[in-house]
């Protein structure tokens, strides 16, 4: 029993090698309380404020896009429907004389009015 106990009592005990702590400190990536914040390190409220501002600007930009009035024709419209509306709105009202001139010649009008407000029934128009 004594030999067994002596075995552990007399056992070699090694020590951490010199420089081990410095290696650990360099690799662990921590800072001491007195150190200045490392570049790029999170600094708490500063980052939170920047993040809040970014979110706020993003929300504001989104609202502006949604609430932006429909663009004027001169500025150029987007979709086909918008273009069609712009084309009709941009077309000048035909001169009445031009309409009747086409009718006399039996030629169809170059403008496709379809059944719209310009081909008013003269009787109905008078009665309004």
């Amino acid at each position, binding site marked *: 029993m004594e030999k067994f106990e002596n075995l552990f009592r007399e056992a*070699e005990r090694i020590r951490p090698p010199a420089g081990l702590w410095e290696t650990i400190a360099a690799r662990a*990536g921590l800072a*001491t309380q007195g150190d200045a914040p490392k570049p790029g390190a999170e600094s708490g409220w500063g980052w939170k404020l920047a993040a809040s501002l970014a979110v706020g600007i993003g929300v504001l930009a989104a609202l502006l896009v949604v609430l932006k009035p429909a663009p004027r024709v001169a500025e150029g419209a987007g979709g086909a429907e918008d273009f069609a509306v712009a084309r009709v709105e941009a077309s000048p009202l035909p001169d009445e004389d031009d309409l009747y001139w086409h009718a006399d010649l039996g030629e169809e009008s170059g403008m496709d009015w379809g059944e719209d407000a310009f081909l008013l029934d003269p009787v109905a128009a008078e009665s309004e």
Partner: protein
Amino acid sequence: MPMMEWPSPERKNLERLRAGDLEGLKWIFETFSDRLINQCYRILLSREQAEDVVQDLFVRLPAMVGEFRGESALGTWLYRVAHNMCLTRLQQAGNRRRLEEANFAGDEAAPRDAYETTDLLGKALAGLDPETRSLLWLKEGEGVPLKELSGIFNLPEGTLKSRLSRARDRVREFLEKEERVGKV
């Protein structure tokens, strides 16, 4: 299980470490590195590998400290972490065969020149599996109480007592053999 009441410096420096303060890590290193490196040395039977594991442990400790729930003493938890890291290292080094074949039976003990065993204890431990080496060293070399060992190895105290008893018998057999050949 209620959180243990830690000694004040341990709690203070653990909180510093959690806050990312290097001084907290330094205190833990200065307090526990000796014991941890010797534990690793006795498991791995290699000074160089023990130094590697301890370095790894402390570099990773800031990230791991969140896993420590405070249900045991910090030292107990660190012993457990070191123990697991050593076993992982052995497995990764392909020493699983040694875990299965390590059979302390006289001449058929694990080849001693495979390790840096310079003292008699190292030679005695070389014939045991790494888990038993760790257990025996912590109990006999560091005086860790059985209750704490139960937390480190996650085994009932009764099981640990049996293992310790068998391990002691084997070491004594080794010593007797060494004495017979005049080496002790």
